[in-house]
């Protein structure tokens, strides 16, 4: 929104590549190891969290790194979800193809609606993305003959197969989710440390100055938004194929706000923050809902407390105080 949104600060020192690589590969290794030790419920939940974390990482590319505060990212998630689900339902296109079509659909939405929305900035951008997402949500209802509107539909089992492996199998699902997660995580890391990432941060910090350094700000933003949508769409497509359900609630405004919350909680503009935020939000809801029906009350209070005391999110604060090299 405002130009003073220093959601993060980048490391002043030359980034210690080995340490950074070690940390992120270490996280992936731990996630791999957890497959063998986690109790079933947490094993299933972590599969889902990893997929949703890809959504959050995609959001982080736009919001955390490029300063694009979108309130409509559900449209990208839904584009992936519905494209993958509908081709499975009506065209007998199974997992790998459906996944790619889902990703392509999200990219297409970004390159059309996103390209229009990027003509605006600041608060207008928030509202335009919100409106576009709302239109996508209503379009899903409008074509209820195919989408079954709010009810949604079940992705046929026979389509949920990847390279001969059944995606409904817990191990296959976990490993598929982990692979997608690893791709998004390492992709985010590479991007954050790339020349492109540096330009995106520059645009976030001071758009006008970036332009006067000769950067075509619009094109860079569109690139960022498209990459962001690709991750969100990949998460959506994977969600539909791994968990077997496609429904309009995933296109509702809630699902535009969730990734914002996850990213803010974990730390905007940090590579691991979105994942951390997704994990914490999931368990916050899960544990409090077991204890009280008023779990949303707890979630609300936690959000307020976080923003009051950890405004840069958890990893943003950690980076500021302890680990300045954290990407």
């Amino acid at each position: 929104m405002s130009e003073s949104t220093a959601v993060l600060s980048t490391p002043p020192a030359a980034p210690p590549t080995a340490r950074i690589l070690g940390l992120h590969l270490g996280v992936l290794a731990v996630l791999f190891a957890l497959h063998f030790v986690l109790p079933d419920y947490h094993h299933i939940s972590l599969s889902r969290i990893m997929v949703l974390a890809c959504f959050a990482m995609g959001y982080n590319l736009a919001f955390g790194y490029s300063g694009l505060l979108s309130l409509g990212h559900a449209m990208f998630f839904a584009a992936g979800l519905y494209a993958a689900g509908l081709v499975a339902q009506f065209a007998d296109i199974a997992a790998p193809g459906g996944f790619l079509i889902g990703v392509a659909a999200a990219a297409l939405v970004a390159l059309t609606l996103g390209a229009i929305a990027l003509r605006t900035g600041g608060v207008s951008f928030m509202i335009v993305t919100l409106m576009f997402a709302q239109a996508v949500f209503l379009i899903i209802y409008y074509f209820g003959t195919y989408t079954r509107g709010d009810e949604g539909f079940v992705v046929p089992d026979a389509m949920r197969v990847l390279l001969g492996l059944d995606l409904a199998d817990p191990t296959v699902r976990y490993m598929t989710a982990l692979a997608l997660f690893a791709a998004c995580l390492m992709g985010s890391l590479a991007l954050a440390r790339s020349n492109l990432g540096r330009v995106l941060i520059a645009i976030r910090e001071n758009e006008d100055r970036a332009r006067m350094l000769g950067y075509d700000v619009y094109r860079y933003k569109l690139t960022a938004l498209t990459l962001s949508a690709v991750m969100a769409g990949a998460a959506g497509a994977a969600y539909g194929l791994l968990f077997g359900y496609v429904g309009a609630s995933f296109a509702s405004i809630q699902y535009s706000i969730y990734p914002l919350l996850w990213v803010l909680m974990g730390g905007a503009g940090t590579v691991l923050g979105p994942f951390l935020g997704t994990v914490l939000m999931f368990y916050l809801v899960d544990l409090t809902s077991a204890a009280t029906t008023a779990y949303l009350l707890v979630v609300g209070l936690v959000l307020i407390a976080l923003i009051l005391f950890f405004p840069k999110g958890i990893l943003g604060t950690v980076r500021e105080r302890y680990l300045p090299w954290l990407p």
Partner: protein
Amino acid sequence: MAAVSGTEMGREPELLLETRGLSRHFGGLTAVDGVDFQLRRGEVRALIGPNGAGKTTFVSLLSGRIRPSAGAIAFEGRDVTRLKAHARVARGIAYTFQITSVFQALSARENVMLAVQRRLTRGLFGPSHASLAAEADSALARVGLAGRADEASGNLSYGHQRLLEVAMGLGMRPRLLILDEPTQGLSDEEVAAFIALIRELSESATVLLIEHNMHVVMGLADRITVLDRGRVLAEGAPEAIRADEAVQRAYLGG
């Protein structure tokens, strides 16, 4: 209003930039009013004038930050009037802001790397981190900030931030460097160092300088253009401008 004729040298240097009838209105207000302006390759030109004369608007038109209401701009013989700001930068027109606007959250080095990177980038991905950093460090060394490369630029002193701006200008290797009040807020020693720096810089680039500090103007400029109420009031060598009555009236007579 007749322009003071410039000192004639042996040969006519090549034209770098030219404007014809350049105008810009804001509502009913005319900030720049039909300016014809020529800049030769290699010179250091100062642009002076009382407050509200339209200096910043004029250079903003040159850099493409705002669009002209009328008139045309040619750079190196090609019409750039319709070109967007970033594309003009790519042609070699660099602009440093009047208000310091470095990327505060990034280190000094990364600020300059951004300036270098655009020039060396083809497509979305550019040169290696190491080569960028090396070139950035040499630019920082030239402005005397080598020791502060790793500091977050927001933590630098004001004077250092101005120097960083210049280093970013250097990193872009522009053909035309437009500096908007670069010495504002600097101490006397900093100003002296700055003059030396611009002199050195002018060997590789044409410089257009908006400046209030007459000491800087007289010490640096080959020629001076005086703007008043959006028009060119006078143009010529420093001594000629100093002697010009119309200029004195504009400045002193109010």
